[in-house]
């Protein structure tokens, strides 16, 4: 057996080398780590969050939790409008949401799916605090103690809380006692929300505020279900008296109150929409971004006048392809010339290509805006030459033409530079050889030179295409309405319509397309070979 080689420190050479390698790897990773973490935190996580937002739909179950539970068993085929229990749960949820000022947010969320719901939420948000007033009045008529906030805290609070509340300077967060939860479950549940909202949002104390009417409704329900409910903390006889009396109360009609507030609550479609969008995750944003709607009856094509996204995606692709084609046509001759000129002249010419590349995007876009206007330089020139009459100047801006001209100009350097770097490597002697073997100029170019330049065309095309399908600024400024891309729609949903879920879904689709192209680019060219500025 061969003797093992030893390193100076007495280890075997193999383990010593392995150790050195490990240390080297570690050092490399330590150098990379800061940037990697930085990019992860400032870039990758935000994008991941956006992807999540495109399917997330927790707003419904978070804003109206009781309604979502009560509505789960409702079947529109059996009962066109949900029963009173659902409406009572909804009134409780709405009361909390109104106090927290989040009910309109849910309204606009559901409005994306069923137009008009938003105003229903807004209108009933104003009316909900009066609903169930008749119940409160009947309780108070029975015993004036029911009007006292202190009665309620005595009934509901944990005894520790009462002692602590009496002494502490800042009122501690309200705690509902287990006994109350057991004896009067619905009342305790909604009273807990009442106490939380009173303390946190209105910065008040539950000991000084009379509960919402909807709390009395819950108490009415609880006592009706269990007239013998008892609580040790309750003032003597109060609950027993109420328990005996509730069966004689006039029952509240919350459903009628809601329908009275807005007729929409009496419609099956409203409740079907809420039921359909109850789950915490939804595909509806993605469906919307391909002009489909998730309706209670399944997935349907959006109404004709609202189908815009498929068309917009197609337009984005077609225009990007047109721009790419224009860049190939214009870039190829320039790159050829660059590759075949003596290096001094080529360098000078390269500067003409690099200057636009380095110039601010907005400068170039403003230049085109100035040039292409109806009263702009190009139209003036055409009128002066006499090609165009003064009264029918060309419309070259605020349409697809404007976008294509400006973006071809902006992206042309991205085609020329990769083409040039490939063409530089094609020996000119090949062309001469082909010609001396009898090929015509065209054959020599088409059969010998062109195939060798294809990698450059591929690299440039993918680069231009990737850049152009995500463009926002230039189409926004020179595109008008017919020359805009999908990215403009994304920006619109972010800043104007505030339909962030849809913006995220559209963005996700665009991202997938770009990443697929990027992967192809990496396979064909290699991301390490991206060249900047020649």
């Amino acid at each position, binding site marked *: 057996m061969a003797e093992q080689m030893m390193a100076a420190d007495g280890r075997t050479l193999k383990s010593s080398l392995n150790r050195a390698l490990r240390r080297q790897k570690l050092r490399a990773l330590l150098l990379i780590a800061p940037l990697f973490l930085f990019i992860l935190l*400032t*870039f990758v996580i935000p994008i991941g969050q956006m992807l999540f937002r495109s399917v997330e739909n927790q707003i419904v179950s978070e804003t109206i939790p009781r309604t979502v539970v009560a509505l789960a068993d409702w079947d529109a085929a059996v009962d066109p409008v949900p029963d009173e229990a659902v409406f009572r749960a909804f009134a409780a949820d709405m009361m909390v949401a109104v106090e927290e000022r989040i009910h309109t947010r849910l309204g606009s969320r559901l409005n994306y799916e069923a137009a008009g719901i938003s105003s229903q939420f807004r209108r009933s948000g104003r009316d909900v605090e009066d609903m169930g007033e008749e119940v409160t009045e009947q309780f108070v008529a029975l015993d004036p103690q029911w009007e006292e906030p202190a009665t309620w805290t005595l009934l509901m609070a944990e005894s520790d809380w009462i002692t602590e509340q009496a002494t502490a300077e800042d009122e501690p967060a309200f705690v509902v006692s287990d006994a109350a939860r057991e004896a009067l479950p619905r009342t305790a549940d909604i009273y807990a929300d009442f106490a939380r909202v009173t303390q946190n949002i209105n910065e008040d104390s539950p000991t000084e505020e009379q509960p919402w009417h909807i709390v009395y409704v819950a108490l009415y329900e609880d006592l009706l279900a269990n007239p013998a409910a008892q609580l040790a903390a309750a003032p003597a006889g109060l609950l027993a008296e109420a328990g005996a009396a509730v069966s004689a109360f006039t029952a509240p009609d919350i459903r009628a109150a809601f329908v009275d507030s807005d007729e929409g609550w009496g419609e099956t479609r409203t409740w079907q929409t809420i039921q359909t969008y109850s789950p915490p995750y939804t595909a509806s944003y993605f469906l919307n971004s391909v002009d489909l709607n998730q309706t209670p009856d399944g997935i349907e094509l959006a109404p004709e006048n609202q189908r815009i996204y498929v068309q917009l995606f197609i337009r984005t692709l077609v225009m990007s392809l047109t721009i790419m084609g224009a860049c190939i046509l214009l870039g190829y001759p320039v790159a050829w010339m660059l590759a075949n000129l003596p290096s001094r002249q080529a360098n000078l010419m390269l500067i003409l290509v690099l*200057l636009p590349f380095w110039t601010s995007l907005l400068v170039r876009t403003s230049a085109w805006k100035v040039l292409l206007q109806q009263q702009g330089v190009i139209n003036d020139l055409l009128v002066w030459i006499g090609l165009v009459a003064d009264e029918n100047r060309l419309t070259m801006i605020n349409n697809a033409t404007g976008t294509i001209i400006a973006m071809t100009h902006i992206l042309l350097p991205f085609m020329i530079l990769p083409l040039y770097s490939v063409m530089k490597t094609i020996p000119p002697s090949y062309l001469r050889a082909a010609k001396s073997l009898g090929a015509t100029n065209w054959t020599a170019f088409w059969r010998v030179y062109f195939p060798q330049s294809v990698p450059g065309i591929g690299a440039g095309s993918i680069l231009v295409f990737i850049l152009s399908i995500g463009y926002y600024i230039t189409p926004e400024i020179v595109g008008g309405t017919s020359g805009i891309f999908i990215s403009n729609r994304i920006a619109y949903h972010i800043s104007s319509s505030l339909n962030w879920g849809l913006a995220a879904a559209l963005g996700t689709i665009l991202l997938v397309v770009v990443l697929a192209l990027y992967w192809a680019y990496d396979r064909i060219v290699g991301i390490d070979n991206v060249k900047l500025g020649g």
Partner: protein
Amino acid sequence: MSALPIYATTGQKIWHYTFRVIVGLILFFLIAPILIIIPLSFNAESFFTFTPEMLALDPEGYSLRHYRDFFTNPEWFRPLQNSLIIAPFATIISVSLGTLAAIGLSQSHVPYRRAIMATMISPMIVPLIISATGMFFFYSQMGLWMEETLGFSRSFTGYVKVILAHAALGTPFVIITVTATLVGFDRSLTRAAANMGATPTQTFFKVQMPLILPGVVSGGLFAFITSFDEVVVVLFVGAAAQKTLPWQMFTGLREQISPTILAAATVLVAVSIVLLATVEMLRRRSERLRGMTPS
């Protein structure tokens, strides 16, 4: 191509010159829009086209009023200031982190090299509108957290958000340029330095850094121009207090177009010419240092 051989036929001669004219026209298309705004920015009137006075080269037709407006009107001056605050900080972050990472990536044994590289280049590949959308959600939460938990002022957090976002966008350019410089780097130089007793820090600053400096600087210039030109992300992440020059130009173009925009554009063209010249000079210097003949 370069010169026409004497035996060229008439057809070849015609093609030769036609081709040159075509290329000339394409180059004209590339460069003319940028150059035309320069004379237009000296327009004495608030027009976006040449007035008869300008065409007659009458000095009356020209004036510096748009430049005066650009440098005195707070509507333009504030954004310029903001751009000059944001871009350098973003550049410093991009360059320091990017250079370290590029050095790490150029070592011979890096596990998951491709995946790491792809992640770090991604800010350059992902369309800006998507980066902006993602950042919009994330940074607004982060801003709230910084204001409420850390107690920073609203304007400070606004700048921090934009600077971090721009730094992320700028790093791929630093990585690419520095990696390119490191490809030609002779490793035996660092070994020689270590052999002669230099510490790793000394080796880095005295041997490696001077050699890769051109790459670092041109990467920094790319990062600077990325931040200085960027408008989509700042529109989404920044607040009105962080309005940058491109943002102001963008609103100007979209809403009330004023000829001051042409003065701003001309100033930016001058800046880009300076940057282009610097990068070109650095590239040549770097190739000379590494023993290649500059092309």
